[in-house]
């Protein structure tokens, strides 16, 4: 089982040094997780480290391809409020 990083990653490097398995590597256009090395931190930590420091909602997926940090869970911005603000900006 392995987590994965998707295109919303902003390449902030926060996850790379804290992975206990050295499973995370710099790649273009964004960081990637080596599925052969990733253990989801089982046995090492209660929470998957990369997903625990990652500041971007949705950038890291669970083994079931669901966002580890769903919209609103890190910024505290309710998703509907964000959608409203974006629509308002688009309409300008």
């Amino acid at each position, binding site marked *: 089982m392995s987590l994965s990083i998707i295109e919303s990653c*902003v*390449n*902030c*490097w*926060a996850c790379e*040094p*804290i992975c206990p398995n050295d499973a995370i590597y710099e790649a273009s256009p964004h960081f990637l997780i080596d599925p052969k090395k990733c253990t989801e931190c089982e046995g090492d*930590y*209660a*929470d998957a*480290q990369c997903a*625990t*420091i990652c*500041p*971007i909602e949705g950038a890291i997926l669970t083994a079931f391809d669901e966002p580890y940090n769903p919209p609103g869970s*890190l*910024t*505290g*911005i309710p998703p509907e*409020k*964000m959608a409203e*603000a974006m629509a*308002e*900006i688009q309409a*300008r």
Partner: protein
Amino acid sequence: MELKVLGQEEASEAPKGGCSAGSCGSNDDQMSHLPESIREKVYNHPCYSEEAHHYFARMHVAVAPACNIQCHYCNRKYDCANESRPGVVSELLTPDQAVKKTMAVAANIPQMTVLGIAGPGDPLANPERTFETFRQLSEKAPDIKLCVSTNGLALPDCVDELAKHNIDHVTITINTVDPEIGAKIYPWIFWNNRRIRGAKGAKILIEQQQKGLEMLVEKGILVKVNSVMIPGVNDEHLQEVSRIVKSKGAFLHNVMPLIAEAEHGTFYGVMGQRGPSAKELQDLQDACSGDMNMMRHCRQCRADAVGLLGEDRGSEFTLDKIEHMDIDYEAAMEKRAKVHEAIENELNEKRTEKDDSNIVSLAEVAEEGKSYRPVLMAVATSGGGVINQHFGHAREFLVYEASTEGVRFISHRKVEDLYCSGGDTCGDGETVLQGIIRVLEGCEAVLCSKIGYEPWSELEEAGIQPNGEHAMEAIEEGVFAVYKEMIESGKLDQETDAEKVTA
């Protein structure tokens, strides 16, 4: 009445060095009473001395992308070339690239004295990249001051390492000392392998910040505290923050206005949290200044800014451009030493001149027994501490307060984007000039080197007297001369007490 003569106290207390008369954003008395060892550290640091920021430049290198906390005024999607605010950068650098860039800038902008690492994440959450940059620079460019800015979470663990690299200046962003308020600013921190949310996380952050501050002061490292003023969240509380950090030995407090726009995608921006008005900010800074040395000239710059505080020359030093620059640092260092010496001489000369001009006291124009209200004036300058910019070219104005106590620097006010496409911040159909008039609210005069006919009359109508008569004069002298003229014309005669209360 006995009128104070400009700069007199400073002249007698501090015959050399320190802050020039009346002008220093960082409270004059505290600056002029500084021991020589500290004065030596700050006199050419544009972020620690208001006077220095007219002459000396700084740069940030963006080597530190990772962060260990989330702040509600920050969005980690930071790659924007056109915005100027903290946490924003165009390209991330490796330590090697950062060293190359620093030396290229130091060779091309000899006024550059300071290299800071300020993100775009938290420098101390990237200790290897940050300290590798410092290690190389202290070896290869020993004439550059190194400094770092941090949220403080990892600070206690890094103090020894900072001291080892000769880091003389550390800025800690402290927005609160109360975990409940902290919970409204910091949604989470990463601590001991967990994401800790709310007041519990904020409490740990606050404890680490305070501990780090104490440890730095213990080591004799100069600490500046930055606070973001967030109306309704921490605005009243910041006076307490100011008192506490001062009592623990922080040198300078920089209260900055919250920047929050929906398009930044930050919590505060999207949720409609407003920033403070210029007046609210000034009132808070004034309220804190009784306890603390305040910084008022901060431009809230990008994590890759280059140049004088009011300018950004980063685009001249992109990676592909510095790649082709051939730098002889030995030669550059000699040139830099000469340039710095010339600036110092100029500053000392100005101080002496100022002392002479102090003979010109207000007594010439002021009438016995009368009091005169203070006046805010805006100044267009492109550096050097003189009124030397055309009104139409100014991207920002420096605001000074003239009173019978002298002239003091209050703040800068940015002219909103001259090429703004309209809409969000400009209001409907507002011209650039109307925007400037709005930005200059509260000012009664604007001093510049030149000004066109059209803006002249519009400014006058808006109650802001344009003045081009003091071109190339030192700012404080020009401002004071205009203040004297205003006194002479009877404009500033105090209203009755009843009127004063409502004023």
